[in-house]
């Protein structure tokens, strides 16, 4: 059951940072939903890796975590991106672009 829409190793950080940069504050569950919807169900975030990644990124100072209420008035932990996180996002986007162009070149070569 290795699904085709599992997120490629290493891109999770990029996707989380990007989502938080464009959408602002979100809790973990909202992040999974957001990525899934925006990618038209092409990408699905594995919960098992999302939370360790969120905690790691918080520790690295890229994200800030705080407790707040959802619209349904339930307590949840909300994450937002920090300045440091934005700089990391730029680096990640640049490296993704390099990877993408590299892969594309290999694929074009027949």
């Amino acid at each position: 059951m290795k699904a085709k829409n599992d997120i490629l190793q290493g891109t999770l950080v990029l996707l989380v940072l990007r989502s938080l940069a464009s959408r602002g504050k979100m809790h973990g569950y909202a992040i999974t939903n957001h990525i899934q919807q925006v990618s038209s169900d092409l990408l699905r975030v594995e919960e098992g890796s999302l939370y360790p990644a969120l905690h790691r990124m918080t520790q690295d100072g890229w994200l800030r975590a705080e407790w707040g209420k959802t619209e349904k008035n339930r307590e949840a932990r909300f994450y937002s991106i920090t300045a440091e996180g934005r700089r990391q996002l730029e680096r990640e986007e640049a490296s993704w672009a390099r990877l993408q162009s590299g892969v594309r070149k290999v694929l074009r070569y027949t």
Partner: protein
Amino acid sequence: MSRFLNLFRRAKVSREIAKELDFHISERTEQLIASGIPREHAERRARRQFGAYALHKEDAWMTNLIGWIESLAADVRYALRGFAKSPGFAAVAVLSLALGIGANTAIFTLLDAVLLRSLPVPHPEQLVAIDIGDNGAEVTNPIWEQLRDHQDVMQGVLAWSQRRVVLETGAEKRFVSAVLVSGSYFLTLGVGAALGRVLTSEDDRRGCAGVAMLSEGFWQKEYGGSSGVIGKTIRLSDQPFEIAGVVRAGFPGLDVGSAPSVFVPICTEPLFHPGGAPNNLDARSTWWLDVIGRLKPDVSLAQARARLNTLAPGIFEATQPTGLRAESLERYKRYRFAVRPAPSGFSDIRKYQDALWTLMLGVGLVLLIACANVANLLLARATARQHEMAVRTALGAGRLRLVRQTLTESLLLSLTGAALGLIFAGWASRALAAMISTTQSTVILDLSPDARVLAFTAGAAVITGVLFGLVPALRLSRVSPGAAMKSSSRGASSGVTRMRFSKGLIAVQVALSMILLAGAGLMLGTFRNLTTLNAGFRAEGVLLVNAGVNRNLPPDAQIRARLALLEKLRAIPGVRSASVSALTPISGVGWNGYAKVEGQPERPGREKLVFFNAASDAYFETLGTPLISGRDFSQRDTAASPLVMIVNASMAHRFFGNSNPLGRRIQVERDGQYGEAREIVGVVADAKYRNLRQDAPATAYLPVAQHTVVVLGSSYELRVSGPVASLIPAIKDTLSPGSDVPVQIRPFTQQISDSLVQERMLATLGAMFGALALALAALGLYGVLSYNVARRRNEIGIRVALGAARARVLAMVMGEASWLAFVGLGLGVAGALAASRLLGAFLYGMQADDPRNLAIAALSLAAVAAAAAYLPARRAASVDPMTALRDE
């Protein structure tokens, strides 16, 4: 502190993570339900999507701890699997450790209970014993009263004295143990009452009526713990005592090892001497009270001692005994108080403390030998496991990890051994306590393991575990994977060093065994000497009967009653001869005084000191003491007839040299005056007096009928024929109607055996430890040689194939063994000579460096070593070269 905060912070972090994940799962579940999936499926699916992270062990600290526990568990599992594969090895190791650690714990438990444990009272560290320096532990009642009324450096002082009294319940009479206590006893100690009230100074006034407190155990046993006992009367030695209260549970008095039944005030002492007999309250030369004080918190021991000794001259001036000679009186007035810490109370059993420490040392050696054995077993296993370790190293196991693994194994062995040993120790320490109990005084100790004992056992387990585990562990972890995997599983290269270490261990084992055997030999020799010496009497076939007569009678009536009882006892069929005396030999009790030849000056110094006994006719015949010359006492020696005495050979020689003592006259001192002279009518052979160790002192025997002052109890001696047990009912029947004091009947041999408690304990345990050491050393030697033979099988095969004679192979292995034994014995003899000096004080008729004893120990060790070596040697000699070489 910050560590704690950290812990809390971490706990908070984990809680937050859990909360966050719960939120996610419930949101997901709701979404799935909304999309039409039934709740239970939805929930399971939401949870499943989390996978392993549901365990959310992000926390590094937790991860580490859990990882550590998991790998420890793995180590333990691995070790257990290993032991399951070689159950013989594990059983031998665990059992020998259990015996070693258990025996150590048992002796330590006893030491702890007798010596180390503090009294179960508040602030035992404040308690100090007060006695008169070199004059022994006890004081007279006048001294005690002075001390009580004049001291001002203690919160309180208390005095007590323990004795056996006769308890009367209905028709039955028996001895119980009572403590006479000062009024300050319970309040100063801080011991309360379980029921009723404690005794106070109000109860302890001259001329008081009988009042008593019961011990909790006695109350439970005799009265079933009934609360109605308060105010009831208990009869002790024919006197009524009103029960005032019950002492709280768990307080056995200040004499550790005895468990008194009743506590009565000191002022009731005269009640135990009915008929106006002199009592101890005003006696100025009867030393019978022990004194303990409780220091004030801000007063040091030295200050207390200094203060008491400024009081001492006044106290001793006021209490000087009458009838003392001038020089004794001068010495008396110079007495000073000694003050020493006494947080653990007093104990008669402490006379065995040197013996117990010696045994502790011996049993420690046994444990060392057991350790050496297990170390050797582990080493042999380690060599067999080199290959496995090499593989593990190659797979990336760190050296520390491997050491940990092997240490886990050894600690597992030693801890299992200790756990078993604790069970064994519970049994063994009770057996030991029984060993130092005698028929006269049962030792009652709290032998439940306390924190100190448990710490001792745990410490012993860990130390032994590391001791025998570390070398094999380090040895193993040093294996280079390449080398070990290339060579065959035998690990030929490191085998040599391993063998050198193993052999070293064997030599040490032999040496330690030698020390133990030599010590055991000395103790066995001492015991044999004491039991086979010519004591001057024949104890076999003699029964001792304790039965008093009514002490309310005047002294001459008491004597007549005794002699009448004696006649009745002589009439019992099976009694060949019988006598009555003031005391019996080897009872530990003595009666001495000064004597001189009539018309001559007294002899100098201690030469005038003579020991006495009062005896009826047939006393010497009954005990089997030969009459050398003159005559025995007869029934014609009465109060009315001329005064006579019989002396022993030592006394005759001291007072008269080689001239004939018969017909000479001796005066005996009483109250500073020499009394009427007695004619010597007989001389008997020397007989041991108070104990077997001391030579028979100069002894004078007086006829009971002429012994006007009844100073001691009386004992009947019966020489009987046939089985003893069948006579006991007849004796009881004979005595009961006329006597009102409990009957105690026991063989004379029992009394003698009671006097040899320490010697028997040292000899028995010494022999046990020696045998154990011998067995362990033999096992060790056998194991190492067997292993060595197995290792060298090919080599031996080649030798045989090349024409070596079987006998030569046999000699080769035996030679190796004897080399080890020789080195060990050499070390052992030196060690034994050094260690035997510790035993000097316990010996009788043996020299600590007795060469015969050393030779016997060395020879038995050599013989056992030879036997242990012979089996592997024969195996080596019977190696078939063909199979040995084919196996290569």
